């Protein structure tokens, strides 16, 4: 279920079949870890933010300390407005599904999102619709991204907030995880405990 008029947060700058990197329009304006985002384009992809990074636009030059004489961190940015253009915030997202002919598919899109595709943070209604299927965790749980347990529990935390009965949703998601990690109930338990905190 694609919800129109949702806030746009950035654009795809690096794209692949399983994941993409988007640059946020605002410095530090990336969606939080675990948030469900959707790309624009002919075959919109759903993805979960799993890594957010801010660095200088020139990879060969590391930013230098500037706040020695400032009273607060924010003063550094206020007194150096050019920093907004010298630094950039990127977020990596792992693809967990796509929209095909108006239907949500819980599998990888046939082609990756194009560069410059817009990236939207999905509103609660869209999150609820996406996570209502028992398949919604499969690609994420199997993605092998760094700190996967953290990402999954953050995703569940956001998804819970979108559902009318968060506890029931979490219990259902827990059962899906138990199927996805059949010999590792410890992992399931730790994900759930973190999601419920």
């Amino acid at each position: 279920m694609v919800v129109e008029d949702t806030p746009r947060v950035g654009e795809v700058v690096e794209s692949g079949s399983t994941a993409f990197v988007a640059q946020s329009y605002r410095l530090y304006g990336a969606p939080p870890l675990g948030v469900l985002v959707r790309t624009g384009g002919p075959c919109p992809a759903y993805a979960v933010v799993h890594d957010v990074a801010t660095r200088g636009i020139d990879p060969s030059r590391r930013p230098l300390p500037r706040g020695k004489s400032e009273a607060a961190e924010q003063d550094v940015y206020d007194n150096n407005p050019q920093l907004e253009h010298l630094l950039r915030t990127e977020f990596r997202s792992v693809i967990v599904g796509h929209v095909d002919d108006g239907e949500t598919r819980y599998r990888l899109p046939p082609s990756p999102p194009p560069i410059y595709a817009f990236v939207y943070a999905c509103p609660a209604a869209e999150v609820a619709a996406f996570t209502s299927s028992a398949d919604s965790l499969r690609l994420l749980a199997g993605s092998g991204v760094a700190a996967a347990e953290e990402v999954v529990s953050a995703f569940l935390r956001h998804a819970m907030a979108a559902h009318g009965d968060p506890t029931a949703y979490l219990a259902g998601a827990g059962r899906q995880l138990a199927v996805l990690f059949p010999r590792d109930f410890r992992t399931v338990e730790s994900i759930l405990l973190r999601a419920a905190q």
Partner: protein
Amino acid sequence: MTGESGAGRYLGVVVGGSMSRGVDVRLSPDCPVEEVAMGQHVVIQGQSRRFFGVVTDISLEWSDDSVRANPPDTSNPLIAGVAAGTAAYASLRVLPMLAIAGELAALEGPAPARTVPPHFAPVRLASEEDVQVVFGAEDNRHFWVGSPLDMETRVCLDLDEFVKRSNGVFGKSGTGKSFLTRLLLAGILQKSAAVNLVFDMESEYGWMGTSEGTGMVKGIKQLFPSRVAVFSLDDEHSRRRGVSPDYLLRVGYNQIEPEDIELLRENLGLSEVAADAAYSLARHFGQERWVKRFLELEGHEMRDVASELNVNERAMSTLHNRLGRFRRYGFITERESDESVEEILRYLDRGNHVVLEFGRYRHELSAYMLVANLLTRRIHARYVRRKEEAMGDAAREPRPLVITIEEAHRFLSREVASQTTFGNIAREMRKYNVTLLVVDQRPSGIDEEVMSQLGTKLVCLLDNERDVEAVTAGTHGARDLRSVLSKLDSKQQALMFGHAVPMPVVLRVRDYGTAESYRELGFLEASEMRRQMERDADDLFGGRE
């Protein structure tokens, strides 16, 4: 996933198993393990047929070994809820008993399962309709005996098939054997499947009987007054209970045969030599008079007879001594007559059922065994003769007769079963239209051959291992039946299996003892009886308006 309407609760899918062990069913996480009970009936939907099976084991499994060593934090309801049914789940063992192929075959009834359902075939609890397809609806040969556990459907027993073979009611004391027997007798009466001859040791079938919990209950004479005759050995006892017996039974000394003494050997504390002496005495004095003449012998006469017959004198004197007890039995007369046997047969021939009460002799096992054995021998002999005379002409054959005996292991123990009439009847099935209904609490004491010939067995709770083994020996899925048996409730529950039922079934035995239960068995209160008679008269002679 509850499927089409009318289907029972969805339990899970078949995940493995074998024909001999039964199939394994992974219980669905939505179905709480506590809701499934041993002995419950389930339906497995295969590709081309439906299987009807019974739950024979329930086990708790886990998919993650670490769960066993370090159980998850189940104080957290979320974790507990997720762990249950996923990492930790339940598994059922289901023994497929019957297969119903397609829709058409349902009309012909189910056949024993000879195949297994495929992997992942869905499994449900049997619905009321499923149970009805298997056990048949109540009609003029199917008698409602009870309901499966947790269900209201009526499980019926095919009484025509039932009385074709000897049958057994087993269970330790206080578990409802008499209750069940009374119900079966009432059923045989109601459906007129056969005539009953009941050796009613404790006087609980004919007139009032006691039932644990509900107090006094009506006997079959009260339910079917015109079709049941109560014979008594003890007039005084019957009158004291407010029962006027239809016939006062007397046994003549001439009817006692050495075979009876052989049967009573253990009870009377006789050695083999002493029991064998009875045969010599019968030869010596003649079959008709030997007991009377022997008991009249004085000490020196006995010595003479002993030496003449070449029998140990001590053995003979013990025999004399023990047979002397018969003098105390008021029902034994000096008169030589076969009248009591004739009278019983007359009643049975008219289609009346006979209950023999023992009155004060109920505590005398020897009296019970003597009378039961002696009457049965004679009645059986008459049936054999008449059946042979009929030579296949069904109209002239004697009515099928069911003889009910209690303490059956005394008549059918390994030592005596080969010699007693009861042993013969049990072995020859319905060849001569006579079968037994044996009621016993120690089935392990009954000869194995006799046990294997019993057609249908109704077993209440048994906890002695040897008894359980004896009852289930030679039955398909015996091991599973044993585990079901040991889990029965001690009240109003019984496992029924064998010839007259398509598959073993755990029953909650139907009620007996309430006004409604009597009505359902065909009993009419006096006022109803009057109305019924008036209606009948109106039908016969035309209305009176």
